[in-house]
């Protein structure tokens, strides 16, 4: 690695103050820090040494999505790779432009958004839409609020919500039939059926709206159509549990979402408000937990430490709001899937929840004297 460090050291003066290309210092800094730990030391106390910092934190999140990325490649083909590349390229371009204007370093936060974003999109989506969506998400959802750590909304979900509202026809025509067998679609570059064929692939949730529910085992394994990374329940749980064990994701948020989802769905079935084509009380609930983006949203999107509440009680309430909103949207509106909207709604109330929790605690402390 010595030779690489030499190159970096040799190039550095060009980008520092007074150098020819010092405008691009943030870009250079991001590349340098991606390769090597920065050589700067903190000047004053306290000197906390902890192997986990923001960058390592983000790395954990990326590692946890890797199973889902492989699942996406297996089920939907090589097209996932250009989607990821476009997502990173367009998002980083916006990120770099803001970093240069603000004269700040490029934050690592985007590396997670860049991989999560293609995972929540229909796998047959045109590549330009991936670029437009991620650019919108990063620009409106993050940079306008002040950049990493200051955003109210999850940038990836803002991008997806934008695409869903702006190009509804293209989005719903971009589902791909999942591959199966030994190699799946690993060797092919699958695209969505052309619009002229008039045959659109339905997701399990949209089929369920018509009264057809596929086998739970398909949902667990993942060979159903859906957003690129959300189909395989078992791999999402694998990555999600890893996130929970490394404490990058907080278990209270996940528990709040899943418990409220299960309880509310159960109550609706028991009360006769909704009925599914699968009999019984327990199995339709499990089916709905595994279907669509609920698990992916609960583990990877809602637990984003920036956009979720910081207080523990706040996290529970936040989770309950997301879980129950998802149930309501799925069962009582024209949309078949509601996780994106539910989490964005949760993001809106997250700061208020923190405020309320803190205010109540302070009042209680005061009254205790």
């Amino acid at each position: 690695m010595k030779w690489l460090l030499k190159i970096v050291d040799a190039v550095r003066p060009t980008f520092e103050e007074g150098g020819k290309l010092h405008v691009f210092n943030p870009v250079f800094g991001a590349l340098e820090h991606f390769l090597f730990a920065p050589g700067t030391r903190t000047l004053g106390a306290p000197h906390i040494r902890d192997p986990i910092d923001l960058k390592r934190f983000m790395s954990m999140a990326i590692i946890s999505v890797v199973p889902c990325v492989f699942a996406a490649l297996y089920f939907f083909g090589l097209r996932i790779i250009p989607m990821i590349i476009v997502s990173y390229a367009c998002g980083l371009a916006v990120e770099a432009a803001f970093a240069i204007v603000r004269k700040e370093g490029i934050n690592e936060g985007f590396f997670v958004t860049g991989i999560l974003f293609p995972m929540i999109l229909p796998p047959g989506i045109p590549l330009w839409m991936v670029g437009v969506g991620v650019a919108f998400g990063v620009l409106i959802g993050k940079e306008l609020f002040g950049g990493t750590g200051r955003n109210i909304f999850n940038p990836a979900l803002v991008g997806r919500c934008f695409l869903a509202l702006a190009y509804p026809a293209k989005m719903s025509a971009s589902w791909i039939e999942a591959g199966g067998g030994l190699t799946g679609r690993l060797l092919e570059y699958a695209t969505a059926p052309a619009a002229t064929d008039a045959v659109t692939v339905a997701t399990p949730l949209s089929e369920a709206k018509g009264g057809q529910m596929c086998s739970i085992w398909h949902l667990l394994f993942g060979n159903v159509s859906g957003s690129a990374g959300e189909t395989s329940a078992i791999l999402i749980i694998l990555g999600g549990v890893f996130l929970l064990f490394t404490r990058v994701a907080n278990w209270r948020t996940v528990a709040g979402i899943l418990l409220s989802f299960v309880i509310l769905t159960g109550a609706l079935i028991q009360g006769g408000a909704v009925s599914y084509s699968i009999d019984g009380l327990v199995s339709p609930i499990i089916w709905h937990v595994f279907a669509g983006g609920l698990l992916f949203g609960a583990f990877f999107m809602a637990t984003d430490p920036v956009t979720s509440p910081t207080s523990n009680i706040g996290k529970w309430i936040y989770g309950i709001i997301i879980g129950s909103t998802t149930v309501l949207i799925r069962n009582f509106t024209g949309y078949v899937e509601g996780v994106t909207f539910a989490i964005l709604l949760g993001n809106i109330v997250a700061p208020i929840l923190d405020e309320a929790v803190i205010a109540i605690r302070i009042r209680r402390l005061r009254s205790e004297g």
Partner: protein
Amino acid sequence: MADNQQMMCGSCGSSGLCGGKGLVTLKEGAWTNNPLAIQVLGICSALAVTNRLANSLVMGAALIFVCVGSNLIVSLLRKYTPHRIRMVAEVAIIATFVILFDQFLKAFYVEMSDQLGPYVGLIITNCIVMGRAEAFALQNPPMLSIVDGLANGLGYAVALAIIGFFRELLGTGEILGHEVLKEAWYTPNQLMILAPGAFFALGMVIAAFNAVKGPEAEEKK
């Protein structure tokens, strides 16, 4: 609405520049104190009618007409209007001009009138018109009030036209009904003709105004 009016009364008290000459008034209303982009007034109509450029232009013209007319009459009557009923008098004057314009649209441009729906009538409650009457015309001579009405109407119309231009272009690929961005390679962005698109466009216009003008706008307050 009541809140907005009170806000106007407060803001007019601080902006003592209005008493200057015509040019200053013109620049103030159309640019440095743009009612839509700087004061953020008249948002309701700016969000509702800007999905097409043609609608935005007509709405802007309506506001210029009403603002100039009502400012003139309010200013002419300012010495004879009892202070306690001035609001009622202002609303009556504004309503007269709004109904004039509305009837004009209904008589000669029925389609446009249908598209704008209730929003022409709602100019009566537009806080820009009311605000200018209250903040400016009540204290200034008729000619200067006309200039002020023109300036604020123009400022609103230009901002509206910019929003309408981008919403129609991006949302449908057309400008004034003519195809500009070809269907073959441009997919219309349906968000832009929905209400959320109006918010994004308005936000961008406000940001652009502030970026060009510099941050002094906030310091003045």
